[in-house]
């Protein structure tokens, strides 16, 4: 196998050359650098309603500029730079692009989300609200201002800001951003749509000052403006229709501290991120104590259990131990490595919107189209047993589809708890009133109460079998279908599921989104007629996130008002109302929340005194850790001699909610 790869590559290459010789000659020619610049300029000229150039004098004088500099610093002042952190990824990245085919993989956060510096970032510890939304601290920008009447955000770039290749970051890159993401070359329709509809325009005042204009003044307007990143115009000089192939393995200059160079890529085996020693912001407040290791080496390990063993050996430095089995059985507090203080166990309670682990019932399918059956199913699901016996009491029960949004989460609504009597009662109302010979309910027509549950989460298989066994007591037969992740997601997106067990991973946003999962526009093509009555010819709409095919005319009105509103209080009331309606509808059965992150880390990997930030979703997300290189040597020595250190089982519960 090892030797056959290059041969295969050669053959494919030969085939490509042969094919390209047949007709697509133009594609092989290089696009010259001026060509892309000209094309971008032509695009700006063609869209004068979007791209504006004005002078500094045109900036309103009465703007209230904000710079976030009074917010508390991040990370630990004790952090030292240097050393290597080893970690693992399950698959080798299929591309180094951050957009386009195959780019949305598990590797992207390492070079995009957790690496780049945006104009300004939401402060992860100060999570209260200002009148303009969340608190932001400066990144590429030095200051910013919100012009409410004109729905515009003004941003002033830091003149010192540089791309990782040393080029200055200017408003050229801001303009190019829109050309880039709206171009069909990137083969990413979601971005095309997003950058065409969410923004109304961009104005350049000078090399470092610009403004973004929006169609609506949403409370989260800053995440769309300050939270974005420009695109390096000088790098994409060969931008063309072959963009996905041409830029497949080129690492684009980044605003962040880590870069990937060709020598750091060992295809199929490992990839190393290297810290830019001259990063322009390395001494800036908020950034100086983060991004400490010189290298972050990601090794490909295909199997979770194997990665755990690699961690235990010391080949990788930290490991996600969210599974009870890992935390309690494989590495208990009295395990040798823990007792001797080689490995520290860190449990950190975070406070974020929770991924929606639950059962999504498809209202367009038989049986689950009946509200009584849906409610009955909810009563027949013994989540409490899963939580107490499977997670060993660590997880919590999810109550609504929007848990973890602080004030936006419904304060009193609770999910239905396991009750055989209530389940039987609801099933009986739907006509399922006697038990068949196997204990499963049947109706008068002899139909069994049997539903199919589809999932792509192989690691939660046991959760589902526990639910399945318990549901039999309530006369419900659940047929579990575990598919490959991609296949399962495909099935769910085609709305071919009865019930799906999936979770949407929600970002730490200000308020929950309802349009994606609950608006009729995502359930049917033209769900309702003009007068609000059901359109008899409506067809299920596929490839949307409305997995319940939930369509309710009244609900649509609330969502529309909610999405237009700029009044947080009003939005909260609407969010509560929507959750109550969703509870009544019973098409989403809330499952469980995992209120913490749990990791094992070798003792040389140091974390700040408060563990992590309030809204952290993973150990590595904010890169607060650093390597104590002396301790690393000492620990390696101690493992040979048997010496021990102070054991460290650390629980950070300052953000724990009750």
């Amino acid at each position, binding site marked *: 196998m090892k030797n056959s790869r290059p041969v295969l590559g050669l053959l494919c290459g030969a085939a490509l050359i042969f094919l390209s010789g047949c007709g697509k000659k133009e594609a092989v020619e290089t696009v010259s650098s001026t060509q892309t610049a000209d094309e971008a300029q032509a695009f700006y000229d063609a869209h004068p309603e979007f791209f504006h150039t004005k002078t500094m004098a045109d900036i309103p004088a009465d703007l209230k500029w904000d710079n976030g500099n009074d917010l508390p610093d991040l990370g630990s002042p004790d952090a030292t730079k240097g050393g290597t952190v080893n970690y693992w990824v399950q698959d080798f990245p299929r591309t180094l692009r951050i957009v386009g085919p195959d780019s949305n993989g598990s590797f992207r956060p390492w070079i995009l989300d957790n690496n780049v510096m945006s104009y300004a970032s939401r402060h992860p510890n100060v999570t209260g609200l200002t009148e303009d939304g969340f608190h932001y601290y400066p990144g590429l920008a030095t200051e910013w201002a919100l012009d409410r009447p004109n729905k515009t955000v003004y941003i002033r770039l830091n003149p010192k800001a540089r791309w990782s290749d040393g080029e200055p970051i200017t408003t050229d890159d801001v303009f190019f951003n829109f050309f880039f993401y709206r171009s069909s070359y990137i083969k990413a329709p979601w971005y095309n749509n997003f950058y065409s509809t969410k923004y109304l325009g961009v104005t350049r005042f000078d090399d470092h000052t610009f403004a973004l204009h929006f169609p609506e003044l949403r409370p989260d307007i800053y995440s769309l403006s300050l939270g974005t990143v420009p695109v390096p115009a000088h790098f994409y000089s060969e931008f063309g229709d072959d963009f996905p192939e041409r830029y497949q393995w080129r690492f684009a200059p980044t605003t962040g501290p880590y870069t990937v160079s060709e020598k750091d890529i060992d295809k199929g085996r490992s990839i190393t991120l290297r810290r830019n020693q001259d990063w322009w912001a390395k001494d800036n407040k908020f950034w100086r104590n983060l991004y400490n290791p010189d290298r972050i080496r990601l090794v490909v390990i295909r199997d979770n259990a194997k990665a755990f063993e690699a961690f235990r050996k010391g080949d990788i430095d930290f490991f996600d131990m969210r599974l*009870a089995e890992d935390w309690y059985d494989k590495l208990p507090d009295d395990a040798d490595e823990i007792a001797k203080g080689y490995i520290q166990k860190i449990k950190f309670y975070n406070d974020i919107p929770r991924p929606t682990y639950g059962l999504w019932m498809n209202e367009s399918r038989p049986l689950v189209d009946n509200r009584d059956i849906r409610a009955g199913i909810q009563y027949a699901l013994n989540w409490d047993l899963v939580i107490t*016996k499977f997670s060993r009491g660590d997880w919590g029960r999810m109550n609504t589809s929007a848990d973890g949004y602080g004030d936006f989460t419904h304060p009193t609504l609770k999910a239905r708890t396991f009750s*055989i009597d209530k389940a039987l009662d609801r099933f009986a109302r739907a006509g399922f009133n006697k*038990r068949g010979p196997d204990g499963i309910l049947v109706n008068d027509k002899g139909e069994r109460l049997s539903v199919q549950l589809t999932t792509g989460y192989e690691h939660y298989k046991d959760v589902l079998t526990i639910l399945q066994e318990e549901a039999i007591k309530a*006369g419900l037969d659940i*047929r*579990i279908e575990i598919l490959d992740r991609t296949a399962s997601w495909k099935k769910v997106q085609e709305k*071919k599921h009865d019930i799906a067990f999936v979770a949407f991973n929600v970002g730490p946003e200000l308020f929950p989104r309802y349009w994606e999962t609950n608006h009729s526009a995502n359930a049917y093509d033209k769900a309702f007629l003009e007068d609000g009555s059901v359109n008899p010819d409506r067809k299920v709409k596929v490839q949307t996130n409305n997995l319940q095919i939930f369509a309710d005319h009244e609900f649509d009105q609330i969502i529309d008002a909610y999405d237009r509103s700029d009044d947080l209080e009003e939005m909260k009331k609407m969010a509560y109302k929507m959750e109550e309606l969703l509870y009544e509808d019973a098409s989403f059965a809330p499952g469980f929340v995992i209120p913490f992150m749990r990791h094992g880390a070798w003792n040389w990997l140091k974390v700040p005194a408060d563990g992590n930030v309030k809204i952290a979703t993973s150990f590595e997300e904010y890169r607060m850790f650093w390597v104590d290189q002396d301790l690393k040597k000492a620990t390696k020595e101690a493992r040979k001699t048997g010496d021990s250190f102070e054991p460290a089982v650390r629980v950070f519960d300052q953000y724990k909610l009750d």
Partner: protein
Amino acid sequence: MALNPLTIRKLKRFRSIKRGYYSFVLLMLLIVVSLFGEMFVNNRPLMVSYEGKWHFPTYGANLTGETFDLDYTYEADYRELREKFQNEDNGNWMLMPPVPFDPNENNPYEGVFKPAPPSWMGGPSGHWLGTDTTGRDIFARLFYGFRIAIFFSLAFMALTYLIGITVGCLMGYYGGIFDLVVQRLIEVWSNIPFLYIVIILFSVIPSTFSIPARIGMLLIVMVLFSWTSMTYYMRTATYREKARDYTAAAVVLGAGPIRIIFNHILPNTISTVVTFMPFTIVSAITAITALDFLGFGLPPPTPSMGELLKQGTQTLTTAPWIVSSAFAALVFILILVTFIGEAVREAFDPKKFTTYQ
């Protein structure tokens, strides 16, 4: 059925090879026991005497809790009920099977679902081989896993041989263009990597079907990609037999091709087939175990050795009894079948009776 004296001699010879013969007896015993498995490994009692009435819950409809004056309408929890009977001591009793666990029920250990060590290693009583990661009895899962695997393999063998022998004999008998074309088709067909096809098919197959139906589909897919190897042997064997005088005599007597193939040629080539049988079973068991191990085999929560092996590799350090039980069971069954296979091969070896001059 009157057996050919030659066959009788072969069977006698098989009996005389002790290792293979006893393996055969043991395996048959296991199969028969597993057929009535519900009476040996089950969480339903064989018999309950309650208030003077007798119940036999093993087969047939569920008896609800209400049958025994309990306050729930789902199936009675018999192990709990037995304790109640014992505590009350008013003449009610029940007879539980030797292993009183269902392969799908989760039994908490120390209050949570985690692997419990075997009873003789200090684990909870009754779990002879311990429990798996969600507290299901390993012995019960192995037992039912064996039943599914062995019947799956027998069905697999029957079907592959049916197709393989028919096609192979037809090729050998007709020869010429037919042989040439079918051979090429088979070559193409057998080059499709079977495992990948199964994996792909199984990740997209809609499972609106019940578990038995899904097992059936897996069987069909496996058969479709496995019948080809048999054709090579049958083709050459038929070629050889076709040239013999008795075939010519049958043709002269006016027998049709089907009659000649199945009544005359097949009995004379059967020894080839017989010697392959045990090894086909071995490969079928291995294949189904491998597929389960990879997560593409039988749908959960069907008990299977492959699924246990997979769990075992993930809990090597914390619950070594899972992998060792599954591994030992698999090796034991495969060795039994291999011993049988060796004995059959030796017994049916024509060299024993032929001398070349």
